[in-house]
């Protein structure tokens, strides 16, 4: 289950931060940071800049912090593909004005990021402090306020990755089979859409036609249903048989295999707990498969 975070101190209201758009400086003139940024190679550098206005006095009041407590405005980033979390820039918030303008600018190496890039803008407690207020933040780095923007680094990730390949070599599976789900059942931390592939046998014209056509025929719809069921079954059964997946109970980063499959299971079996499902899947596989067929409503459209 994804953890709900309740912080042990008072945070500021979100309107204490007014953030301008992130600007991307790939050439001499800036452009707004897009939601999707394809084609970045390892040698590229993302040069980012934005301005934020912070209502410092109200923020201190919200958080119960005295005027002499040092605050930082920080921009940091994390990448779902590499699992890295890095600082982009820190600026001391020295003013106590109602509206303090801060410029944030920094670089991210293209080689450090993959999957989804999250860029956080935060106001933090600069150093640990002791205070009489039991609800005031006291640890260095405590997040008092934050805002996030996300950028998708790979545009193909909005679709389920499908590759049409020739099974003739035998390396990919039976040369007369129609498809194969290829995924790494041992690494649920991997970005789902970067590590899962539906391989379609290029030598099987009916299956290729079924996944290629925009207005499917009845035959194509049936083939799609069968593929849909097979993929869902492969993912669900693979996950339920994995000890680590069962232990972590959905505690995976967004976009990872673990998170996506956990969400799929929750959507398909909203009222069932993982241990019960795993027991059914291993002890009554025939029932489980039939139940899954019904929940997916295959062959109905």
């Amino acid at each position, binding site marked *: 289950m994804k*953890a709900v*975070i309740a*912080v*042990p101190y008072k945070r500021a209201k979100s309107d204490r931060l007014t953030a301008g758009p992130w600007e991307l400086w790939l050439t001499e003139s800036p452009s707004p940071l897009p939601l999707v940024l394809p084609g970045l*190679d*390892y*040698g*590229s550098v993302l040069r980012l800049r934005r301005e934020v206005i912070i209502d410092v006095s109200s923020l201190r009041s919200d958080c119960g912090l005295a005027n002499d407590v040092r605050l*930082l405005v*920080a921009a*940091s980033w*994390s*990448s779902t*593909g*590499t*699992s*890295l*979390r*890095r*600082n982009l820039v*820190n600026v001391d918030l020295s003013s106590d004005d109602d509206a303090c303008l801060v410029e944030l600018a920094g670089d991210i*190496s*293209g*080689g*450090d*990021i*993959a999957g989804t890039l999250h860029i*956080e803008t*935060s106001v*933090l407690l600069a*150093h*640990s402090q002791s205070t009489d207020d039991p609800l005031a933040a006291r*640890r*260095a*780095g*405590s*997040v008092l306020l934050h805002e996030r923007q996300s950028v998708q680094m790979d545009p193909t990730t909005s679709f389920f990755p499908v590759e049409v390949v020739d099974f003739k070599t035998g*390396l*990919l*599976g039976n040369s007369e089979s129609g498809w*194969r789900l*290829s*995924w*790494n059942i*041992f*690494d649920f*931390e*991997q*970005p789902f859409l*970067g*590590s899962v*592939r539906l*391989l379609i046998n290029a030598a099987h014209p009916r299956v290729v036609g079924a996944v290629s056509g925009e207005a499917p025929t009845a035959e194509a719809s049936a083939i799609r249903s069968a593929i849909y069921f097979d993929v869902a079954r492969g993912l669900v059964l693979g996950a339920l048989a994995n000890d680590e997946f069962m232990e972590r109970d959905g505690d995976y*980063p967004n976009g990872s295999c673990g998170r996506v499959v956990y969400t799929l299971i929750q959507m398909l079996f909203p009222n069932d707990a993982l241990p019960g499902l795993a027991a059914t899947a291993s002890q009554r596989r025939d029932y489980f498969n039939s139940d899954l067929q019904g929940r997916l409503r295959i062959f109905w459209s």
Partner: protein
Amino acid sequence: MILFPLLPHHVALQIAETARSASVASLAEGAATEHSACIYTPTGGARVSKAGLTKLRNDLLELATSAGYPEIPTQQQAALFDVEATIVLSRQMPIAPAEAAKGGVWEFLSCVLLPDIVRWRFSGTGPITSIERFVAGRRNTCQRLWWRAYHLSSRMEAGSQLSGLLRSLGEDELVQLMERPSLAGIEGLCGAIADGFLTISAQHPDLTRRELIREAQKRFLRLSSFLWLESLTADDVGGHVESVFIQVVASLHGTQSTSTASV
């Protein structure tokens, strides 16, 4: 940046199924610097040369031989190999983290370039090597070592510090440090926790190291949800690390006193 061959996962899986029970000698014979199914990341660096791959294989093979290859290694030999191999991999694989995040890199190394070394390194527990040592993931033979070096070296200036840390930490402790990528990925945290752990465990030999690191990691995971540790100075991160270990020691001493009292 250097680009390594990427072996498609379904091909790796097929090779791994056979390699996991094959003899070290037969796998050594089949080891190669290329595979027809391999692809490369299209841009972002120069492809590793055949000479580079051969050197990587030879250097790792030399380390393995020093640690008893092809005979089944003792736990101590395996640990020694891991330390030295971590340093070789980090030096000879100057790849971007985004490249290292691609499973195909590690599957090429484990299934094509070094299958005999993988089989040898993990041959101790039975006649079959776990498939996880060949395919990509946190337990992949080379992937786990490369990322160890990467995370432990972050914010470090001297390479000798990495070597010292690797020699001082046990396998279970290293696994604990890397277990949660979201924690290991925070710049400088992994090395700081490792340093803090070694200091505190030396000061409290009465406490089991396993308990110390496990309990501390749980606390760091909780803290990282509301502390942006990546935005702090190394000193401030060090302060948090020290404070967490002091709390862990107090908590474990409390537990031990309670259990002693109850006895």
